[in-house]
């Protein structure tokens, strides 16, 4: 299936993906409601977007007691608003921290790949987010570890 492949080295921290994502997901431009999150590393000198990897287990999906989470035609785990009661079991079951909760609707929500046309990919000015055929993977781990090394060392020395 096509997945969101993140190329963290290209991210400039502009947050356009968060704006576009929140608009697609909630109809308003508010990064706090985005399901892709740009994280700072190395004391805000490096950035990388982080979102649901659409994992094979689907911890959110299997945890749901009312079968509200299914798989969409493009392979995304998606929350069905009519079924979701807002019990938050999915938020605790997801080990990636990529299930979110909308306090206005009292429903869980997450990356649904925008039905196959991800807005984050479309708006990223540096092609740091790609939508392509690939096995989902840990796109950020090595980057984040490498960029964080000097920062951690400095912080530890300054204690």
């Amino acid at each position, binding site marked *: 299936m096509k997945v969101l492949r993140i190329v963290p080295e290209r991210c400039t921290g502009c947050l356009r993906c968060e704006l576009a994502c929140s608009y697609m997901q909630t109809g308003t431009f508010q990064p*706090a409601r985005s399901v892709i*999150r740009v*994280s*700072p*590393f190395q004391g805000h000198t490096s950035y*990388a977007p*982080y979102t649901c*990897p659409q*994992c*094979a*287990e*689907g911890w959110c*999906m*299997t*945890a749901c*007691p*009312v*079968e509200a*989470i*299914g*798989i969409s035609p493009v392979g995304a785990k998606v929350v069905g608003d009519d*079924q979701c*009661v*807002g*019990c*938050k*079991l999915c*938020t*605790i*079951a*997801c*080990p*990636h*921290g*990529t*299930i*979110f*909760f909308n*306090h206005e609707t*009292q429903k869980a929500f997450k990356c649904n790949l925008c039905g196959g046309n991800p807005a984050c990919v479309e708006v990223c000015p540096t092609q740091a987010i790609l939508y392509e055929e690939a096995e*989902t*993977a*840990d796109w*950020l*781990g090595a980057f*984040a*570890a490498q*960029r*964080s*090394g000097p920062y*951690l*060392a400095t*912080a*530890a020395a300054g*204690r």
Partner: protein
Amino acid sequence: MAKQRHVIVGGGTAGLNAILAIREQDKGASEIALVSDERPYARMVLPYYLGRSIAESHVFTLPPGRLAQLGVTGHIGRRAAGLDAKVSKLTLDDGTVLEYDDLLIATGSSAVRAPVPGADGAGVHSFWTLDQARGVAAGIATGSRVAMVGAGFIAFTILNSILKLGARLTIVEIAPQILPRMIDATGARLVEAWLRRHGVEIRTGATLAAIEQAGGRQRLRFTDGADVEADVTIMATGIKTNLEWLTGSGVRVNRGVVVDDHLRSNISNVYAAGDVAEGRDLVTGEAAVHAIEPTAMEHGRVAGANMAGGDVAYRGSLLMNIVEVCHLDIASFGAWDDATAEVFEAVRPERPAYRKLLWKGDRVTGAMLLGPSEDVWTTNDVGMLKGLVQSGVRLGPWKEHLQRNPFDIKPAFIAGGATARLLPQTVLGRPSVPAGRIP
């Protein structure tokens, strides 16, 4: 060759997931009989039924049409009366005898009430089954005074609904703190203060002595301190596992049915799952009964996959609970109360927010989280803390970072390599299939 005959005893989360796992694997090639004394429903959503945010019909998981679609013969309204595992026969309470090739024990738990005079009196309810939920729902109106006896997880799952119905709530708890089996004293103090600010009365360290009837109301008397008067009293004073029917069956029972990593009991064609099973704790590796929804789900799926001829070893269940009260999220994971662990904690009482991380070496083995649910990081951190405990990832230099700031979970999670450890993990050794696509 005759069809394989599976018998599932219990229509809760464990039984439902076992049925789905069997059908996912065999596409309908076997016989499945389900014995359930109630119409199967999702217990987790009863609080939302109580709060009238969903209709009663929303709670049912296996209505007749679904049973037929899954090729399951329902013995609904029937209880298992006795098991003779030596000859693989189950007797139901109406005398029906079911012969099986394999059987799943998934009879769950029942609510128990504090053993005080008047505990079974009028207006006193448990909140565990759908019938009990109906009783509570019918009893509460705007302005009702509700007394909640017990301040555990079950009680907390219905606080929001009770307040939403316009009732005035008093919580009494025998332990010195609320949520004694879910959070520590520091977290409990923050939650108690938060609830008081939202108009909930709380009395901890209060030992109930009797419940008297007083003009259509209940008067709760205590060994010490003032009485509490209520229109509705809810006894959320714990649960016990439903094991009595296994006496003389030959199935080995300790705190629950003792199962191996395939969820198999000492009898090779008898499995157990959910609240009644004593399986393995993922973090400690020790035998444990985890009477929680996620364990019932995973147990059920693993047992079902193995009953359908699979060979799935279960890694163990992760103790976890989350509850939200008045927009405050409260969660704990794994060995959150391990007195031998190294502990990092940080409190921001003004939010309020609290994080506690428990360590063995450079691995997080338990965690506690508390914070306003509208804070972005609260929801993110809930999942990531679960991921840290579940993956057992070694955090190396990030341990020191988290000692300086236990709130800054995200960079440690990402740079520590948790994702790479988690992505290959599945419960059944294959990608999950949504329930709607089974069989």
